[in-house]
């Protein structure tokens, strides 16, 4: 028998460490010999903490939402009396969340212990590396990855095999493999989960890339905001080295490959290839003009393979099952799966992996359980600050690189933020523009100045100072920035604005023409009035109003001078009769 407690960042934040400690305590108190192990994130974030109990035949019972106070009950029933506590096991909807997915990159996450290399090897780990060394030449590995149709999962969608081939054929003797683990898109956390839940898989992919391209050194550029991922990667690196998968003379092949970890210092632009390599070199992370491309002159001016975590995590599977089998998953030209982080106003928040081409409807309603609290679906933001919004008209659109590009959105790194009817699309656009504006590195004028002006224009709308011209200026400026900015960050910065204006033109017009924020989110558009029926004239609101906008004498209905009112909302909670209405 053994017990595994899911301890990814979100599990730990939900109290998983305490839950695990309590199980250990109980086991010790009863003088039992049952190991309590760690596992990564299963993706069922809304059901954390998750505890899997395995019997001696490896049959698993999965308990969800195991708060520390539930441990005693489960322990007594399941461990002492050998009767699973069925009321606390995973619900059918939780089970369906898992069963409707196809997992490649996340296959082992939440199943194996990420801190034990033996667990990874037992689940078939490092067999792809052995196979690549024994059966393929470097050129054949590159061809295999090309044939599989694998495209970069970080957002660009560039064919991975072609990139490897280009680096392999460079004549330079020193080459590098770099893993982009600087997952900076707000709302995306699939790479974190892979690193926390199955770090060896990504390392195996990187080692295979090293062998295929002739690189001897690899770098992982990982965000400092992911301390647990860094910790588990460090453990994985030292275990892989001890077992001979990494370092000098890998598995007796005569080939060397070593990996080091570089911590990002907090700059979103470093997700861009040339900025990332500049940052590893110890410089300010500013992108440069391309060409030369990273495959020709990347890190330290040498040919460099740069892929993200999820891309590398797909490589071992392709080597193991072959290109043809891999291509059967997904759609033509978009083979394999994609991991998405489902967040926002959705019932089942978490991490999922589905075949490319799965529709938004399946993801949001079948897997995600629909919009939270029974509200209506309004839009989903895909691709973070570089992406766009999709609406109910796109629910049956297959999610893959090409289909999304056609509707002006992009898959990005895979963050899906679901928004309900109460979300104001103008303030969402402002939120993203504020983000890119702050993260602009300042090197090129279109991005540095342009995003700043776009933010000011959006502020004008949110703060009720705008006209229809403001919308026209936004579109015009967006076009210019998209065409002239130096790097991907700037080129895609206008996307959320353009896409919300295209999809929700009426909502923008309601703000600037009718003077109304349809969702009531923008404070500047709120109007406060006193209900004649409810007001008893007690005068409490008059006393709290900081600008003396409320007038009226005692025991008579009060009124609010809308010209003086600053919409601070102080009067609303002060009224004991709910007489102040916000419209």
């Amino acid at each position: 028998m053994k017990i595994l407690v899911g301890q990814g960042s979100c599990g730990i934040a939900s109290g998983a460490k305490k839950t695990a400690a309590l199980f250990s305590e109980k086991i010790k108190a009863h003088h039992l010999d049952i190991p309590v192990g760690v596992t990564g994130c299963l993706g069922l974030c809304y059901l954390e903490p998750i505890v899997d109990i395995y019997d001696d035949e490896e049959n698993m019972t999965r308990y969800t939402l195991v708060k520390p106070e539930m441990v005693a009950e489960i322990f007594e029933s399941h461990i002492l009396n050998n009767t699973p506590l069925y009321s606390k096991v995973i619900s059918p909807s939780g089970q369906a969340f898992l069963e409707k997915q196809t997992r490649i990159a996340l296959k082992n996450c939440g199943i194996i212990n990420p801190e034990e290399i033996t667990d990874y090897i037992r689940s078939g780990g490092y067999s792809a590396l052995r196979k690549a060394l024994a059966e393929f030449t470097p050129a054949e590995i590159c061809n295999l990855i090309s044939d599989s149709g694998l495209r970069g999962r970080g957002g660009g969608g560039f064919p991975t095999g072609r990139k490897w081939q280009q680096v392999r054929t460079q004549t330079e003797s020193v080459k590098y493999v770099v893993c982009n683990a600087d997952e900076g898109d707000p709302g995306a956390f699939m790479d974190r989960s892979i690193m926390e839940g199955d770090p060896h898989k990504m390392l195996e992919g990187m080692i295979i890339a090293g062998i295929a391209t002739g690189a001897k050194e690899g770098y992982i550029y990982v965000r400092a905001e992911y301390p647990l991922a860094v910790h588990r990667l460090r453990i994985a690196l030292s275990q892989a080295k001890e077992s001979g998968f990494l370092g000098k003379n890998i598995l007796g092949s005569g080939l060397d490959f070593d990996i080091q970890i570089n911590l990002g210092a907090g700059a979103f632009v470093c997700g861009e290839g040339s900025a990332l390599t500049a940052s590893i070199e110890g410089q300010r992370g500013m992108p440069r003009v391309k060409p030369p491309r990273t495959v020709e002159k990347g890190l330290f001016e040498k040919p460099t393979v740069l892929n993200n975590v999820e891309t590398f995590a797909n490589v071992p599977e392709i080597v193991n099952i072959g290109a043809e089998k891999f291509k059967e998953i997904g759609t033509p030209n978009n083979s394999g799966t994609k991991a998405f982080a489902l967040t926002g106003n959705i019932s089942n928040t978490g991490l999922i992996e589905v075949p490319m081409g799965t529709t938004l409807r399946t993801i949001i309603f079948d897997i995600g359980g629909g919009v939270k609290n029974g509200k209506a679906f309004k839009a989903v933001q895909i691709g973070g600050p570089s992406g766009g919004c999709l609406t109910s008209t796109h629910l049956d659109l297959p999610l893959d690189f090409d289909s999304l590009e056609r509707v002006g959105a992009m898959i990005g790194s895979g963050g899906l933020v679901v928004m309900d009817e109460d979300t104001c699309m103008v303030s969402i656009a402002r939120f993203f523009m504020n983000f890119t504006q702050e993260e602009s590195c300042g090197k090129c004028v279109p991005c540095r100045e342009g995003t700043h002006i776009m933010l000011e224009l959006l502020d004008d709308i949110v703060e009720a100072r705008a006209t229809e011209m403001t919308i026209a200026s936004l579109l015009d400026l967006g076009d210019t920035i998209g065409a002239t900015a130096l790097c991907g960050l700037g080129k895609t910065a206008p996307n959320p604005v353009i896409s919300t204006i295209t999809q929700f033109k009426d909502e923008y017009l309601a703000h600037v023409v009718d003077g109304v924020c349809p969702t009531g989110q923008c404070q500047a558009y709120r109007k406060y009035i006193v209900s004649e029926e409810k007001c008893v004239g007690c005068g409490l609101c008059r006393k709290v109003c900081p600008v003396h906008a409320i007038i009226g004498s005692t025991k008579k209905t009060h009124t609010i001078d809308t010209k003086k009112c600053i919409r601070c909302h102080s009067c609303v909670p002060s009224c004991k009769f709910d007489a102040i209405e916000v419209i």
Partner: protein
Amino acid sequence: MEHEKDKNHSLCSHCQSSAYAQLDLVLDELKDTPGNLIIILQKAQEIFGYLPRDVIRRIATATGHTQAKIFGVVTFYAQFRLAPIGKYLILLCQGTACHVSGSLAVEKAICGELGIKDKETTPDNLFTLNNVACLGCCSLAPVLMIKTEDSEETYGNLTPDSAIELLDEIRRKEGLI
């Protein structure tokens, strides 16, 4: 050891000399490695809690980078600090998922309670507030992380009230209330 607070530094004189000794070890190990600068700065900040002027000067001398270049790198990245921080560093997530789940209301509550804004430290040096882009725990939005010298704890599903309760808990632990 009795810690004596020096007016101009956040470390007492004993700790300070040992901190400089640690920095020298880091510099000896890394000063000739290519691409060393960010790694050295990260380690220096770990030792001192921030990057004092003297430390930047010492790094410049050891590595051969100009102070101007180092200052350029330091101010480019959000991670580096030129002023000391409080004992508890609050990293408040302002990512998309947290934003749509009400992180602004949480920020307002924390700022109101502590009387500080983003990137500021309370006068008693107990709390520093930093807004960050995304902590990657989106499913628990809104989220914050509280960092101290030896621990990192993430708290999720916050409301303005639960965030203030969290601050009170720390104050109780510190014997302040």
